[in-house]
């Protein structure tokens, strides 16, 4: 049996710079969440199969009918161009639900007590969990655009714009995830997290520029759709991927959509990160 010593943390090495330490802790905890994800591969269904199924359904079932709504010469292919950026935003919003559910299930177990008793920043366990989501969101983007490519979707701009669209989508997803984290920490069960988040995500993603042109909607609804963050994300991605081909919402340019998306990313973070932290600290 090995001799184990219990003297004060003398065995600990020289401590690195403070600001990098917290980042490193978040990385360690993100890795923990990734390991957990890989142990339950069914958690990847929402970011892998779901966008494929939705693309197939909307493209083949609705694409013929909806393509005509996009103006003269409207076709199923034209609808695909319209659909891929929209579905990307919707899938991102939908796939944010699972982090709230996981957080809800996780926090009831003692392991968060352990994190709280360690000399790391309070927010770090939550930040780590959200950072781990990065890989799921990257999968969403790659699979949605990749499967769209198989169906005939083409990026009309350039590689840098594609990267910008991917980056913007993931940034929005990482911000939107904090809403789910907050709901996850507030709800009593993982099942109710799903219910509450669906109530938020469905209206947000359908009452937006995701699936049809905003001009086809009644005026009162257009007022909502035009401030809806999902509409901004969709228009921004459309503009970045399709350039001049993009059918943007009236009065919107790619630049304005990108700008408003960043405003929303910051706005959601400013509101929901503190809310999530408060819920986390209070949940003991």
């Amino acid at each position, binding site marked *: 049996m090995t001799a184990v010593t219990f003297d004060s943390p003398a065995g600990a090495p020289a401590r690195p710079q403070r600001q990098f330490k917290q980042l490193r802790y978040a990385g360690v905890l993100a890795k923990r969440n990734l390991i957990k994800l890989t142990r339950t591969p069914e958690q990847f269904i929402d970011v892998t199969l779901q966008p494929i199924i939705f693309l197939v359904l909307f493209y083949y079932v609705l694409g013929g009918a909806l393509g005509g709504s996009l103006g003269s010469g409207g076709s199923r292919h034209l609808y695909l161009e319209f659909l891929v950026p929209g579905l990307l935003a919707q899938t991102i919003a939908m796939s944010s639900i699972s982090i709230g559910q996981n957080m809800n299930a996780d926090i009831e177990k003692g392991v968060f007590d352990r994190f709280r*008793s360690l000399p790391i920043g309070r927010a770090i366990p939550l930040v780590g969990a959200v950072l781990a989501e990065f890989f799921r969101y990257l999968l969403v983007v790659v699979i949605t655009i990749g499967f769209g490519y198989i169906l005939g979707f083409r990026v009309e701009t350039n590689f840098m714009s594609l990267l910008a669209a991917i980056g913007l989508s993931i940034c929005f997803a990482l911000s939107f995830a904090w809403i789910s984290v907050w709901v996850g920490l507030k709800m009593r069960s993982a099942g109710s997290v799903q219910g509450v988040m669906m109530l938020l995500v469905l209206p947000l993603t359908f009452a937006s520029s995701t699936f049809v042109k905003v001009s086809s909607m009644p005026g009162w609804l257009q007022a909502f759709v035009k401030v809806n963050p999902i509409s901004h994300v969709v228009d921004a991605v459309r503009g970045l991927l399709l350039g001049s081909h993009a059918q943007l919402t009236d009065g919107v340019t790619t630049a304005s959509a990108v700008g408003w998306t960043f405003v929303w990313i910051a706005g959601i973070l400013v509101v929901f990160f503190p809310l999530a932290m408060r819920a986390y600290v209070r949940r003991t």
Partner: protein
Amino acid sequence: MTETELSIEATGLVKSFGETRALRGVDLHVRKGTVHAVLGPNGAGKTTAVRILATLLRPDGGSARVNGLDVVSQAGKVREMIGLTGQFASVDEDLTGTQNLVMIGQLLDLTKKEARARSAELLEWFDLTEAAGKVAKHYSGGMRRRLDLAASLVGRPSVIFLDEPTTGLDPAKREDMWDVVRRLISDGSTVLLTTQYLEEADALADEITVIDHGRVIAHDSPNGLKRVVGGQRLTVRAADPAREDDLRELLAQIAGAVPADEGRGTLTVPVDGEDVLPDVVSRLRASGISVEELSLHLPSLDEVFFTLTGTRSAGDARTASEVTV
């Protein structure tokens, strides 16, 4: 550093959860390098006290220091010195034993290599080397507890909080855990342990604080606490139930007090000391009363609790299914 230096010093801790007053002014003083047991039934406030001392909860009133550092204003520094093993094993079920410990090590600023070495060392110490690569979900209850305790020791804490470390373990595993606690002490750590097992506090602790309904109702050494409810007791049971009355009379003569009937023919009476034993034996022989049991003992902690609170704590506590607050 002096002998009387305190590792844990809590004064007037108050904490409420809504209407429930979990702590109503608890004082705790734990000397460095000792085991201190906080004993009480479910709902007494044990876990709340530990969570405050381990910086997981803020007290509504009162103050607490660990190694001289305030648990509220210097919480970060306190966290560098403590290890916590909660009431429910706080290991990550989806991670292997090694992954759990390495993760904690990295969060405590060990490099990956150091964290791995520390992990291997602790896994061996807790007899988990073979299960090191297995996901903790598949561990037995005892293995989880051991992994949990190992996780709380990764940072070589000088103060260790063990919140009901043996609740739910079978007796053999409980003894194993007691050995672990004794070894922690021999290495110089201070241990604060909560328990509802009276024999556990008796077996491990240098000092015991008894709490009930959020208040300290007694604080002493195990022996000192036993003396609170009087001196030694003589317990005798007649082999022939028909001679019970004769036995009662004889004991009353010897002790000068009315023996208490403990049931099934067992009689207990307070006596002055062990000098009385030869006298008892010779008188029993002279009266021709044969006995099945004859013992001299200090009151059990169970009896201490009964004297202090007027309720049979241990029996209640072991059947209670409510969650300790």
